[in-house]
């Protein structure tokens, strides 16, 4: 029994589970942003012309990286499942870390530093910025809490 458990402990890959799901989380948040705020609400503008060429290039790179990360994340996840190497607790922690990290990154770097677009136009954007970034921070904290719990429990088999 102990030997089996030891084998299982070796076989799951907690770090990889966390990293892969963080990639998925970030890409999913990017997709939610694109679908909800750009397409459904029409709050974000496609391009509001207040950014320069460098910002536009970084936006293009990030946007394409999100698409590729979504596909890569899911195929790496499928690979973990196939090898029975997924550690669910670490995977959940990674997912929330990824969701929160992307939300905060988008709120601070894309909206404020690169000024690619704002959350909403024609209104005072300050409360929106706060809500956006605090939501990101909350997701990040949930992810951090889940990580601590997952690390304390140690790797488990699915």
């Amino acid at each position: 029994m102990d030997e089996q458990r030891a084998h299982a402990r070796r076989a799951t890959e907690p770090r990889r589970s966390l990293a892969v799901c963080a990639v998925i989380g970030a890409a999913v948040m990017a997709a939610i942003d694109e679908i909800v705020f750009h397409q459904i609400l029409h709050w974000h503008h496609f391009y509001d012309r207040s950014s320069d060429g460098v910002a536009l290039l970084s936006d293009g790179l990030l946007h394409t990286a999100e698409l590729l990360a979504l596909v890569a994340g899911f195929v790496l996840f499928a690979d973990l499942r196939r090898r029975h190497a997924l550690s669910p607790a670490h995977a959940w922690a990674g997912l929330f870390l990824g969701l929160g990290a992307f939300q905060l990154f988008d709120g601070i770097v894309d909206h404020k530093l690169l000024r690619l677009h704002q959350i909403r136009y024609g209104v005072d954007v300050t409360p929106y910025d706060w809500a956006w970034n605090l939501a990101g921070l909350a997701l990040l904290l949930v992810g951090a809490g889940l990580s601590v719990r997952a690390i304390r429990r140690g790797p488990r088999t699915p």
Partner: protein
Amino acid sequence: MTAGHPPPLAPVVALAGVLADVAYTLAAGRLRRRGDGWPRWRDGAFGTGVALLLWGWCGPLPGGPFTEHSARHLLVGMAAPVLLVLARPLALTLRNLPPGGPRRALLSVAHSRTAGWLLLPPLAAALHIGGAWALYGTGLMSVTHHHPPLDLLVHLHMVAAGLLFGFAVCQLDPVRRRRSLPLRAGTLLLAGAAHAVLAKGLYAAGPPGTAFTAGDLHTGAQLMYYGGDAVELLLAAALAAQWYAATGRRYARGPARGGHGAGLRVQRPRA
């Protein structure tokens, strides 16, 4: 403003497309009858690719002149070539040709040094995206309106460069050299970014020398941007599927070399 009109030689292209699809279907059927594995979805991909190519080249497309041009560019230069490449036309042809002159000639072209260079992913991407930048970033687009031969050349380049890019990124067909997955994925990333920047730039300002309305430019540019996303997702999925299958084969060969093989050998009994 004549940007909306279909490119020249529509009947010839339509005929060539239909003939290619018939040939593909016959060749794939022949392979299956002799017992080769040739999945049916490849026939579907080829047929869809031909249909999209013909729709983009010959068909009426909705929207203003620039939107219509964007839709054409998307169908003819991006969506159709990727679907055609996924159907592995070169491998199918080689498997059908009997040993002899034509087969040797085709192989020598596929394995030639020139093909090797052209299929270097960054170079193929530069030809593909560079062509688009030249068309939209210079006065080329306004000139093509008055010169049908140039218009034809531009559209032929779109198809050829799209096919080359698809071949180089997917590398499903037997060619001179296999390029690594990181190189191909990195190329896809840079090409996708360049495409996104181009589309956003066109949203703000149309190609030099043209006078499209702002609404038309906005619709066309967004169509280009999100259509590009769809094609990138398709290419990324093709690369991911290749990686998944290749690592699966490596695990099956044993854990000694693969490193991660331990988990695949047996279903572990639950403790």
